[in-house]
């Protein structure tokens, strides 16, 4: 793969580019889709191609191609150059990253068992999740789900001597269940998990937890509206609280005045026990690798330390603008995209209390297992439907609640954290998050 990247960089230089970079990606996915309570489809997908970035007189052009051959790469090089020519110069452009010594590939990010996943093995895995949910309790009905085993190869080369390639694997899956009893249908329960190794991926845990969550929301009642304490499970916690954090520490947003935290490094913004690091080298981290999407070494970057903002996340462009080093947070989801900034593995440090202990501290409040709503990442406003909710009184879960709306402000909520849980889980926003207990959330009854 790296030979395609090298070829592209050489060709672009020949065509007159001041600088050039090529990103080659090859992703093989084995996927099983469950729909309407049965195996709907099984697919093998290949997502591969090359993205070429060129700079001439501070003007940038980018072109991509899905076909990896000498001819199509040369054509893409020409396209990238001709686009740079019709663009206007960006006075803030400094340069592509320069070659640096890369750290060792983080431990446990490649598993040959996932890389060589067969269709039948994948199907068996899904059936284990499916059977677990189905046999857990007669009242549980599976709605849909999807399980994927993904092998990603990435190679980067640029005209400043960067040359890197690596293979990583990931297996992930989710299941959506409802529970039905006496004409009542529970709200839809969702459970997700992901791992870099097959050994540590438990489809039965997904099946069981989805079923448990669906059952927990049967026999639902309503409550009056109030403002109070909410236990957010990892999925809703990551979306409501930490998605605005990721947005606000993105150096591109900071530099462009889009972050509420611009110019405020060193200030206290959260509960004093909240510590967040972005760790691109985390062993077995879902998004761990030795280098980022520009070939810059990954690193461990403290973001919030004991409630205090300590760092922003950079790629080479935002770092160069400030004359500092990139934090290795360049990101592209696909070879068709230019690098942006994203967390690698945003890790919210665990607290000491289990979920049960957290619930036991709530005099009056709710526990939210799923959130379907909108979060404004810039201002922090959030509002939406809390699904899979239960009502807590005097430290005990009393009963399920009918779907309830919640609203508030994430930045305010970060200060209103009462407790951080001990069980960290990977969530879908590139973060590892424990459950969090916050105060001051508006709970709005739908009655």
């Amino acid at each position: 793969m790296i030979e395609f990247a090298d070829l592209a960089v050489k060709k672009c230089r020949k065509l007159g580019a001041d600088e050039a970079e090529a990103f080659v990606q090859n992703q093989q996915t084995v996927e099983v889709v469950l729909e309407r309570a049965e195996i709907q489809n099984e697919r093998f997908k290949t997502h591969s191609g090359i993205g070429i970035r060129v700079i001439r007189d501070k003007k940038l052009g980018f072109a991509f191609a899905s076909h990896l051959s000498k001819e199509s790469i040369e054509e893409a090089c020409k396209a990238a150059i001709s686009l740079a020519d019709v663009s206007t110069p960006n006075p803030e452009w400094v340069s592509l990253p320069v070659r640096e010594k890369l750290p060792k590939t983080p431990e446990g990010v490649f598993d040959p068992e996932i890389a060589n996943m067969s269709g039948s093995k994948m199907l068996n895995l899904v059936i284990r999740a499916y059977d677990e949910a189905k046999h857990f309790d007669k009242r549980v009905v599976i709605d849909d789900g999807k399980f994927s085993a993904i092998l990603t190869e990435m190679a980067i080369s640029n005209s400043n001597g960067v040359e890197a390639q690596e293979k990583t694997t990931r297996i992930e899956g989710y299941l959506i269940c409802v529970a039905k009893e006496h004409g009542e249908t529970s709200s839809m329960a969702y459970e997700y998990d992901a791992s870099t190794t097959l050994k540590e991926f438990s489809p039965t845990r997904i099946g069981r937890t989805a079923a448990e969550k669906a059952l927990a929301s049967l026999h639902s009642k309503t409550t009056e509206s109030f403002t109070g304490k909410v236990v957010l499970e990892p999925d809703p916690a990551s979306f409501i609280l930490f998605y605005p954090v990721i947005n606000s520490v993105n150096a591109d947003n900071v530099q462009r005045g889009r972050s509420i935290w611009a110019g405020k490094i060193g200030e206290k913004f959260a509960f004093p026990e909240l510590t967040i690091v972005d760790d691109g080298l985390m062993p077995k981290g879902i998004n761990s690798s030795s280098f980022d999407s520009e070939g810059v070494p990954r690193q461990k970057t403290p973001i919030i330390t004991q409630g205090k903002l300590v760092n922003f996340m950079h790629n080479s462009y935002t770092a160069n603008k400030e004359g500092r080093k990139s934090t290795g947070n360049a990101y592209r989801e696909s070879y068709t995209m230019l690098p942006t900034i994203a967390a690698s593995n945003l890790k919210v440090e665990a607290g000491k209390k289990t979920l049960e202990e957290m619930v036991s501290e709530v005099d009056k409040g709710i526990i939210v297992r799923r959130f379907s709503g909108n979060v404004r990442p810039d201002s922090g406003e959030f509002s939406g439907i809390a699904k899979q909710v239960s009502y807590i009184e005097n430290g005990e879960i009393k009963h399920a609640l009918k779907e309830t709306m919640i609203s508030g402000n994430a930045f305010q909520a970060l200060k209103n954290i009462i407790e951080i849980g001990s069980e960290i889980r990977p969530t879908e926003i590139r973060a590892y998050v424990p459950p969090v207990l916050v105060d001051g959330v508006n709970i709005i009854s739908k009655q």
Partner: protein
Amino acid sequence: MDVLKESLQKKSKLGYAELRYHKRQTFSISVKDGKIDALNSGTVEGACARILKDGSWGFASSTVLEKEKIESMMENAASLAKSSKPKKERLVNLASVKPHVDKYETVMKKDPRKADKEELVKLVLETDKAVRGFSKTIVSDTVTLNIVDDDLIFLSSEGSEIHQRVVRCFGSVTAIAREKGNITSAYESVGAQSGLEILDKTPLMNAGLIAAERASKLVTAKVAPAGYFPVILENRIVGLLAHEAVGHCAEADLVFGGSFLADKIGKKVASEKVTLVDDGRYPNGFGTMNYDDEGVPTEKTVIIDEGVCRNFLHSRETAQHFNARPTGNARAWNFEFDPIIRMRNTYIEAGDYTLEELAEDIKEGFFLKGGLSGQADFNGEFMFGTQEAIRITNGKFADSMRGVTISGNAFEVLKNVDAVGKDFLVRVGLCGKEQINYVGMGGASLRTKLLLGGAK
């Protein structure tokens, strides 16, 4: 093309076979705070095979279009159909469809393949400049323009051969305003299935000015309150209601799963003011095509006719199961995916009220504008975000507040519709149902009641 045809003939014994070829060429411009990010263009090209053998589907795709690869892709699909069959409880039968040999191309005056890229760059830079210059409170903006040009070929072992070229032009503007420690953003989009002439008809500049004005206005505004209110939903938001909350419940695969509409054909599910359709042929619609990805001709499907549920949206498979006619709703995002039931352009038909007339009978309520993302469960419980809530007091529009997420049961909300406006439009949308796809959504502003998830 010939390669695909030959492979299809050679492998005719594998079962019912569909081959799809898809070449997607894209060009995009993104300007951030006056600086061009990098002009971006590219091509993604590939093919896929879907094979039905003894009631079981198999699917495989490839980006290599050589003859041997196409044939082995077909064999892979056939072997998946065979191996997964024992795990499937329901076996597939397809409703019969006449094979079509036909061509379709987006109606265009200005073909983007002949576009002057410098002109387009200029257009985006001008919009960016106007947005940033709108007021002192605008601190940042992003303006994008995208052209997506799809070449599609559908071949089936039943003899279909359909060529379609679908061109979509669309853009968006995000404006960020800051004042006295407050920050807010506003977003607006434009676009259609069209050549570049759509940018003359509905300029990017208009979207830019709407976003800039909204962000400036809302930066110091308070968040709308929580509670159950009479509201006017702006036409652009009505599309979200039509699509998210109602349309999904009419998708036959979800009907099969027991969606709200499952037993409602012929029954009243909405106020008689409501006629809701999913139209595969709406002129310039983002989801318009003459044939779906199973080679079925598209049509205008009436889901709710003056309050009564009439039809579901079908693939060939569900049409057979429900003993209905296929409606041309099987769509795939690209060659990496098999077609599933998707909406095309979903909207509520216009009424005859002006906005002022809609407000007249509201004593205390809100005019909700600017959609954000939405979601619905198949029982009709929905939510979607709004950007702006203009207070209505004694029938008159008053001050603007920051929008909040709204929620309700779609069918209760539709039963409460007592007036529909005449400001009809269909806008661009992206829908994510396992795989994403381009859809149109729209309608006219209407009056109803629902829950605002706002502040205390």
